[in-house]
């Protein structure tokens, strides 16, 4: 948020308005992640369906935010921090929209998995991973609204944990599939779901970088810490 008010107060209202929409969108996306993982873990088809249906509201907010931000550029000619505020709104909205799509995909795959017998322990570990990403998203949105670059950097560094969780799950699913070919269908779905969550983490990281750009005017130039790539064999 700008450090002091504009002389033209309606400009402040415009900027606060789109940032408010981002926060609302963030809330819906957090809920979608949490519900999608819970639906898988508790084998709740109804909840999975709710997540799939809920994506439309997230997409609609993304569109509204894009339109509002375009109007602000056309009508207010924002510069300096105001310009960065509007630019980051476009990108963060896009990140959130993609996270929403991944949650929707997880919900869709959950519905498919529920038709098959469960593979012991897999739902809970995926839910832990989703929880980790959900917390990253929550913290990065807090960092955004508090304009806290340090907090954003912290979220950025935490993505490595999600990458590690993904690698571990990948190995685990591989083992299950080798043990019993009847697990293949379920574990293929689970793998895509884990990959989806890993991608959500990347989008949360991207939001963290946008917060740093918003506050400092510069994107972080250091290489982001990454876990070792998934073993290819």
């Amino acid at each position, binding site marked *: 948020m700008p450090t002091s008010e504009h002389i033209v107060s309606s400009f402040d209202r415009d900027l606060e308005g789109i940032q*408010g929409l981002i926060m609302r969108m963030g809330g819906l996306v957090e809920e979608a992640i949490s519900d999608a993982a819970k639906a898988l873990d508790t084998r709740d088809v109804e909840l999975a369906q709710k997540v799939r249906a809920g994506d439309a509201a997230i997409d609609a907010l993304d569109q509204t935010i894009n339109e509002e931000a375009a*109007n602000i550029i*056309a009508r*207010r000619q924002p510069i300096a921090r105001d310009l960065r505020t509007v630019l980051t709104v476009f990108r963060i909205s896009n990140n959130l929209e993609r996270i929403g799509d991944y949650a929707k995909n997880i919900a869709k795959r959950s519905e498919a998995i529920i038709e098959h017998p469960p593979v012991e322990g897999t739902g809970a570990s995926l839910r832990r991973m989703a929880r980790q990403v959900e917390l990253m998203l929550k913290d990065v949105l807090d960092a955004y609204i508090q304009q806290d670059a340090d907090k954003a950097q912290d979220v950025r560094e935490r993505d490595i944990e999600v990458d590690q969780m993904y690698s571990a799950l990948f190995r685990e699913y591989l083992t299950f599939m080798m043990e019993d070919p009847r697990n293949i269908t379920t574990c293929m779905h689970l793998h895509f779901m884990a990959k989806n969550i890993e991608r959500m983490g990347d989008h949360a990281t991207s939001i963290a970088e946008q917060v740093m750009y918003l506050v400092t005017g510069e994107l972080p130039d250091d290489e982001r810490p990454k876990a070792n790539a998934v073993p290819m064999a």
Partner: protein
Amino acid sequence: MEDTDMNDMLMTRNSVGSEDIKISARHVQVFYGDTHAIKDVDVDINDKTVTAFIGPSGCGKSTFLRCLNRMNDTIDIARVEGEILLDGEDIYDKRVDPVQLRAKVGMVFQKPNPFPKSIYDNVAYGPKIHGLAKSKGELDEIVEKSLRRAALWDEAKDRLDQPGTGLSGGQQQRLCIARAVATNPEVLLMDEPCSALDPIATAQVEELIDELRENFSVVIVTHSMQQAARVSQKTAFFHLGNLVEFDDTTKIFSNPEDPRTESYITGRIG
């Protein structure tokens, strides 16, 4: 944030002003001698809305603005045809007194032009000649209310007896706005009100215009299309005496219908 707050905020932000029509112009033509300055213009000005007229120099935007309170009457060679209705009544009707009309449809000019009198007298002048105050107390109230509406009260209240010409340019322009609102007009016409002001004074006047819209219908001529984009809810683009396009400001500045509008606002034609 609560949903209701958010909805309120969106409503405010997306507001295109009132839908009630204050001024309705039909087939308006203006001639200066042999020059055809305004060609068959139809436009509706909404109440409690800021409407901006934009266009290159000589496009007719100021000429048309001056039709709205019969300022063109003062120019001998000017001839106005067509119909301009204020609340449904033809302002060019013979029975209409132009002086009374101009109290209802006030005007603020490009260059701040306070009278060579005190700040108080500048604002009190209109109400006095129109007999709007019965006593000194009432007049004092009108002066204070007008200066407050013009966001000048805090700066001027301790120097009401000092000459208006001693104020800064931005303050002088706000004094002229206070003078215009003192007669309790329904419409305020502004002809390039910020072109003689620095960016901060401009922002203050723009904030003021946004506040004035709660009580008045404001029509502003500006050669700064950025200003039109910032302050108005409706924008009319004039070119060579024609009204090319008239629509919501957001629409005009994000996706205009007419290629001439797009060329002008994007800096491709002058």
